[in-house]
């Protein structure tokens, strides 16, 4: 293929993945996940009692996700604190993760997931979901499966995976498309589809199969990180 990406990757090549579990001693579960320069850290607390009490659900636990960019994660300092965008991504992450978690085991409780982006370089929500999925497993929460997330996209007419900031800002031709997705690792279910830009309906299937393939790579990285925390002994606390 004559088409070349800015950083010389193949069209379906992810940025180098780094994953580590057990990075926050005070949390019940924690993980760090990075696609190249795009780094997310996640901490899970709970299940614990939910306050305010009127939000408690007597049938199941509440998964409360808080996603935010840290002020130094982007080149123009971000004003600290949640904004509309962070709220939206928190909610989308919550929906992406909750299908695999058995929330009915902890009625009236809350599972708190905190996701912070240490360094942003496009696709922060996907890195955040991957980190959160590992952190939830690390916290011993009963889960059906892990969640793997990656963004697909289109640069002019070419399909690409895991866009960097430079590719996301591409404006020539049809412009850039950013299509964030999350997939259940060992099944064909998708739990997040967020399209920004445009893509012909007939190509969506193609994108889904591309993402399904690279989700395996992410799953292996997550699995390896989770197993390492046991074998390499991460302290008893």
């Amino acid at each position: 293929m004559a088409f070349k990406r800015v950083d010389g990757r193949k069209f379906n090549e992810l940025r180098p993945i780094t994953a580590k579990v057990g990075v926050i001693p005070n949390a019940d579960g924690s993980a760090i996940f990075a696609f190249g320069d795009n780094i997310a850290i996640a901490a899970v607390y709970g299940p614990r009692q939910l306050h305010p009490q009127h939000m408690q659900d007597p049938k199941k636990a509440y998964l409360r996700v808080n996603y935010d960019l840290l002020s130094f994660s982007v080149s123009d300092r971000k004003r600290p604190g949640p904004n509309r965008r962070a709220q939206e991504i928190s909610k989308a992450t919550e929906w992406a993760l909750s299908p695999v978690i058995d929330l009915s085991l902890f009625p009236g409780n809350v599972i708190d997931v905190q996701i912070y982006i240490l360094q942003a370089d496009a696709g922060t929500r996907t890195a955040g979901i991957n980190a959160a999925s590992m952190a939830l497993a690390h916290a011993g929460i009963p889960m059906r499966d892990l969640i793997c997330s990656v963004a697909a996209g289109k640069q002019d007419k070419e399909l690409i995976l895991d866009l960097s900031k430079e590719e996301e800002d591409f404006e020539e031709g049809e412009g850039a498309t950013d299509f964030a997705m999350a997939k259940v690792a060992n099944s064909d279910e998708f739990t997040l589809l967020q399209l920004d830009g445009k893509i012909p309906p007939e190509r969506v299937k193609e994108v889904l199969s591309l993402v399904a393939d690279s989700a395996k790579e992410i799953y292996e990285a997550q699995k390896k990180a989770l197993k390492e925390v046991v074998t390499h002994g991460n302290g008893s606390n």
Partner: protein
Amino acid sequence: MRKNIRQEYNEEDSETGNNEGFDDSQDAVSVKRTIVVPGEVIISGEDYLPGEGARRSGENVIASRFGLSEVAGRAVKVIPLFGAYVPRRGNVVIGRVSDITFYGWMINIDSASSGFLPIEESPRFISKEEMDQYLAIGEVVAAKIWSIKTKGIDLSLKGKGLGKLEGGFVFKVIPARVPRIIGKEGSMVNLIKEKTGCNITIGQNGWIWIKGPDMDSEIKARKAIEHVADQVMVEGLTDKMESWFQENK
């Protein structure tokens, strides 16, 4: 008097079946343990019976939590290695008094909801005026979970080895590792008690209280317990702890 009672607690605890989860037991059937992540296939075959933390999907038995999978004969289960404490009725926990109300004490047991210890559940009669003399805010207590309701957890001090823990110190381990520290019928904790001469009370919530004749033996007991909690992959650890004590004199 209470000291003697407390020493018996761990034996009693394992008899009452509080020590489910993993210990050092090596039964007649061969036991195979591997680390699994959620969604991973533990074993294939129609014959196996998925237990706690495992489920069946067609041919395969699949892990539904992160931990150590254990295939013992036909039974398959996943033993958790990490996570917050989830209270269960009958558990002995160690907590700290966080408040005194008209009817009893609020106890922080480091779990989803805080515990309440009613005044009637103390082993002897206490009038409302002397509540803070019996248990003051900040003091540490070993109590049994009497009931779990949506409102909260009720505790009791009526039982062997329960009551205020005076002197010594309290530290935390991952609650999922507690069965490992107790060992089969209390074998591990008894070994540590024997070798260090310390009094040890283990709460299922992962809080451990140690009081020994001197500071050195207390620290040694703590190190031994943390070592046991760390060595999750080692089988037959009770025997290996003997040599650990030889090395770390």
